[in-house]
């Protein structure tokens, strides 16, 4: 079943998927420079973070759903995981929207992006899709949410911290099922590994077209955004292990991050 209603567009040499439908209240942007990331933890910055997260979760609902629709021949167990993911992501949207409103915000208050969809859903195979969406983007989000939850708690906002922590429980499972299924599929079909590699290459190259320019940029709300080489990805080793990345894979992720950010294990009582 092809989603014929959603076509494709070209950026340089890359074919990307047309964005999913959004309420008219949302202004959709493609570059971080056009978003309203304030780069601090002021009241409006916190609200923007939660609003941005809500919009990203909405994109995740769309991505999981479209995988269910577009790959009817995928193993039933994997389709079940994707269907469950669609529900999880929709619950995340509800929880984040509830928090946005509690913080005095509203739907469409800040620009949103669907770029993750545009890139992920341009790939024509399911292994490539879950490699990008679950194993890369959601895994990265898992690291970020883990750190964000700690920051909100430090600021005394336990309600947001608890919500983010609960969301991350689901995200870990989304990354984990992708890791499990890719391993399982690769056992019977070595081509799976090539599909994974091609998807990662595509994501890296296509994403570069939208990244912050070298030397950094000032974004739409006047915040300084670091250039790509200075943007430090947080890598949470504990969460990566929980999501069943192998030790070798975690080392490779840390190497790519330049060992610049290693989130320490949280002390338990």
């Amino acid at each position, binding site marked *: 079943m092809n989603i014929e*209603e*959603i076509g494709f567009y070209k950026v340089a040499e890359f074919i990307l998927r047309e964005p999913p*439908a959004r309420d008219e209240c949302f202004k959709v942007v493609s570059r971080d420079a056009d978003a309203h990331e304030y780069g601090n933890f002021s009241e409006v910055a916190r609200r923007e973070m939660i609003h941005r997260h809500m919009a990203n979760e*909405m994109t995740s*609902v*769309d991505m999981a759903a479209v995988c269910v629709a577009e790959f*009817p021949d995928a193993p039933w167990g994997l389709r079940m995981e994707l269907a469950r993911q*669609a*529900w*999880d992501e929709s619950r995340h949207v509800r929880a984040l929207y509830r928090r946005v409103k509690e913080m005095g915000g509203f739907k469409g208050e800040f620009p949103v992006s669907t770029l993750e969809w545009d890139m992920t859903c341009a790939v024509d195979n399911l292994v490539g899709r879950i490699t990008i969406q679950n194993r890369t983007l959601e895994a990265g989000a898992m690291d970020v949410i883990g750190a964000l939850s700690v920051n909100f708690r430090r600021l005394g906002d336990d309600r947001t911290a608890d919500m983010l922590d609960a969301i991350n429980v689901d995200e870990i499972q989304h990354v984990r099922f992708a890791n499990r299924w890719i391993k399982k599929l690769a056992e019977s079909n070595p081509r799976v590994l090539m599909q994974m590699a091609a998807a990662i290459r595509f994501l890296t190259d296509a994403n570069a077209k939208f990244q912050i320019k070298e030397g950094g940029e000032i974004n739409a709300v006047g915040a300084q955004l670091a250039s790509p080489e200075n943007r430090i990805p947080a890598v949470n080793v504990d969460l990566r292990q929980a999501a069943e990345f192998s030790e070798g894979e975690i080392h490779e992720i840390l190497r790519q991050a330049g060992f610049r950010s290693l989130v320490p294990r949280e002390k338990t009582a």
Partner: protein
Amino acid sequence: MRMITSVNQRGRSIATFRYICVWMMETVARWTPITPEMEAKVMMGRHIWEYAQMADALGKRTFELRLPEQHSIAPVAAYDAFLKEVVKILGTAERTAAFYDGVVPGIIARFKTYIAATDPILDEPSIVVLQRAIVDLERQRVDAAELQRELKLSSGAAAAVAAKEKSIADILAEEKVAA
């Protein structure tokens, strides 16, 4: 009412119901990214998972009824064509009405008909699976009604779809006999 007495007939009925649940899952999944309203996407996300669970439970039952696990059988051509027409409906209001006020009540009725026609002891596992599905489907209709109120969606498309659904009395396809 014609009673359902053979294992073969039960297996084919359950496999046909599974086909319809997979169709519901795929249809709502297909509509999710092309639906602009966030509140509608949120509702659909939950329903996709519920259809998957219905299909999964029915698919486990097909195996118990001497068919392959997670086996589906397409319904009669007229019903299959009806389902394919529903997928093409445009617009959030029209889709919501057609699906939740047109298709779903018909499916609930078919599940209830099956429950009434099969043996309550010998086929109780099928009955339990269908009764659970009915609870979810009826709650989904409430979800949809709330969405329609919240977004002020009209329900004009429902009556024609419901009438079409009802006009196809028996959805079980003829069994193909090997030559």
